[in-house]
């Protein structure tokens, strides 16, 4: 009897621990993503000699809350000419795929939802599934601009998917594992961005294209396509695309920090989670700086950069890394 109770309590404690970690990861990811809306607007305004939102709450921090309330109360219009079930489903897919990937990202030495031995493949697979959200959203909208945006997005994301994976293979070879936790452990001798600098650059550019962030926001280029694949979306469905984009930035920044900059490794006077969040935040700021400073390339230039420069570069990186690793053995 006592034994059963003990088992029960242990099981519950384990369950509580996982629930706590999952809630923590979700909380951190969603808070960063929502806070990013405010951070991006403030940072952009700093770089454009403006003030940015500073009216709602201290430093305009409650702007996000106000925006969310507004989005909830907006008319959630589903166009009568759209493909209704797919139209409703599409924004959810984006959120789900990105949030799922956060499960394998180690926030700290013991702070992760699960340590998958195929972590990187899990991430690549999920980001490939993310394309469906945009393609289906654009297709279901039954609007020519949405469709063009969705087509561009699918071509762009498929292109950059290819060498996003290839650029990570150098890291995988050096760490001898697909697991994010193992990769972070392996970086105790030195962060991977020095031996894998080419891989880092290629992954960074591919990451921008993958989240279709501003220099590469060709799927939603507002000058040409109104808002691209989410032209017909309103209310909280648009909000999900919007937050999904910021979640994507957070995810890519977190992965850059994890794979190339030692994840939660750092001087021990601060907790590891802090170092992880600090590095992530740094790359988020770089993403925003890119937005503030660079113009959008033409669509064919983007594809050319991908296929003609970055793909050979990542293949070359793979080859050289492999050769050196074999030579050292």
């Amino acid at each position: 009897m006592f034994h059963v109770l003990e088992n029960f309590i242990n099981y519950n404690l384990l369950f509580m621990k996982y629930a706590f970690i999952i809630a923590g990861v979700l909380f951190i990811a969603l808070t960063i993503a929502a806070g990013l809306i405010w951070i991006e607007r403030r940072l952009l305004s700093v770089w454009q000699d403006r003030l940015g939102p500073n009216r709602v709450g201290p430093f305009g921090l409650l702007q996000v809350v106000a925006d969310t309330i507004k989005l909830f109360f907006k008319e959630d219009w589903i166009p009568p000419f759209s493909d209704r079930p797919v139209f409703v489903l599409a924004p959810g897919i984006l959120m789900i795929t990105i949030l799922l990937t956060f499960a394998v990202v180690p926030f700290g030495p013991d702070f992760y939802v699960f340590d998958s031995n195929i972590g990187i493949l899990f991430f690549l697979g999920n980001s490939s599934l993310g394309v469906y959200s945009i393609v289906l959203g654009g297709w279901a909208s039954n609007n020519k601009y949405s469709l063009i945006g969705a087509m561009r997005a699918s071509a762009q994301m498929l292109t950059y998917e290819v060498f996003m994976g290839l650029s990570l293979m150098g890291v995988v070879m050096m760490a001898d594992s697909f697991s994010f936790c193992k990769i972070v452990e392996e970086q105790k001798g030195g962060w991977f961005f020095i031996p894998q600098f080419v891989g880092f650059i290629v992954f960074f550019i591919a990451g921008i294209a993958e989240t279709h962030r501003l220099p590469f926001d060709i799927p939603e280029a507002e000058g040409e396509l109104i808002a691209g694949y989410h032209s017909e979306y309103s209310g909280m469905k648009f909000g999900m695309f919007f937050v999904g984009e910021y979640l994507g930035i957070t995810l890519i920044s977190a992965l850059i920090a994890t794979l190339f900059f030692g994840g939660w490794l750092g001087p021990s006077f601060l907790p590891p989670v802090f170092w992880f969040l600090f590095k992530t935040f740094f790359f988020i700021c770089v993403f925003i700086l890119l937005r503030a400073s660079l113009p959008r390339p033409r669509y064919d230039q983007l594809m050319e950069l991908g296929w003609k420069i970055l793909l050979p570069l990542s293949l070359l990186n793979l080859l050289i890394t492999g050769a050196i690793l074999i030579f050292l053995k």
Partner: protein
Amino acid sequence: MISILRSMWLTFLHVFHKTETVEYPEVKPYLAPRYRGRIVLTRDAEKNERCVACYLCAAVCPVDCISLQATENEEGRRYPEFFRINFSRCIFCGFCEEACPTYAIQLIPDFEMAEYDRQNMVYEKEHLLISGEGKYHGYNFYKNAGVDMGVKGKGEGENEEKPLDVKELLP
């Protein structure tokens, strides 16, 4: 590649620049005296209405926001019976001010005229008419005009010659 990094660096340097934003309701910007804002109707130094209801402002207005009706008082002096400006249409181009032969209609540096009800944007004559002279002090149209409105005697106007005695011109 270098140019991309350079432009990112130059953008980053803007952290150390001063912000250009004027926080409007707390800090009011300086408006030049000739700023084209709210439209007023002025009076001359004798506190009479300058407007002679010539319809030139209504004719020149590109958005047709001015409407008025001319009438005369018992002395035969023209004035507008009503004078109405629809500020929800007005584009503050200042053509009416340029067209006005009597300096009656003037644009002043005030733009804070937002309303919740669109109908409140329609200003009637009593809203437009001010008691002062606006930008042109001491100007009185009838001192220059040929028509006698009791302001000046014949030949006593500004830039006006004395009337000729026709009989002196005889050879």
